[in-house]
């Protein structure tokens, strides 16, 4: 009997609190979760080199990236841009989470 593969979600958020809550929520939804604290760490985990596959360091393919928008250093938008610029990583869907309601900003994301 073939086991359905669990979805692997990479969650990016600088807040410890939010990372823990997201991890729990995704666990309950039967996803494997890897939570990292920054866009930089996320790109390291995914391998910045476009030739590599979308395997994380632990060898598990990432199916979805969930990122906070407002983070120190690299914002969620900057992370989104880097991922979409990569020939291999660009196929991974990226969801940006934000409590801000700035419409022009939201429109910017959809262009990707």
């Amino acid at each position, binding site marked *: 009997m073939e086991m359905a593969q669990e979805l692997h979600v990479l969650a990016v958020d*600088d*807040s*410890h*609190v*939010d990372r*823990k*809550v997201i991890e*729990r*929520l995704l666990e*309950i939804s039967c996803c494997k979760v890897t939570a990292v604290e920054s866009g930089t760490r996320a790109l390291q985990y995914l391998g910045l080199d476009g030739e590599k596959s979308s395997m994380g360091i632990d060898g598990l393919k990432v199916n979805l990236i969930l990122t906070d928008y*407002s983070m120190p250093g690299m914002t969620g938008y900057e992370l989104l841009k880097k991922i979409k610029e990569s020939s291999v990583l660009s196929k991974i869907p990226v969801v940006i989470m934000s*409590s801000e309601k700035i419409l022009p900003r939201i429109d910017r994301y959809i262009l990707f």
Partner: protein
Amino acid sequence: MENQKKRQAAYMKRSLLDQGYLDEQFIHLEELQDDANPNFVEEVVKLYYTDSARYVRNIELALENGPYDFARLDNMMYQFKGSSSSIGARRVKRHCSQFQEYCNAKNIEGCRNTFQEVKQEYDTLKTKLETYFQMER
């Protein structure tokens, strides 16, 4: 004995909700608890205390001397507000918003006064939650 403790905990939680210290987000967090993760909410709240100590310290330092970078103060408070919101800390969150309004108005005295209120609400909530978790265990 056990049932009495449970009733007291439930009563205290109801009271915290009614008085506006907490909002539904806290209930949502409790819904994520189960037998395999019985202390989930307390663990999240402990992380909130750790994060908050850092946010508060950074804001304090930034409020000490001019020139005041209101955009930076606003951004730091935005992070603290986000954290507070994630655990359902309703009153703390409200005072964080007031602080941000003073940042927008570039009113340093307003910021300073409101920040004292933020800290007071935070300390009050922390004390009440510590009591609540003791009852819950």
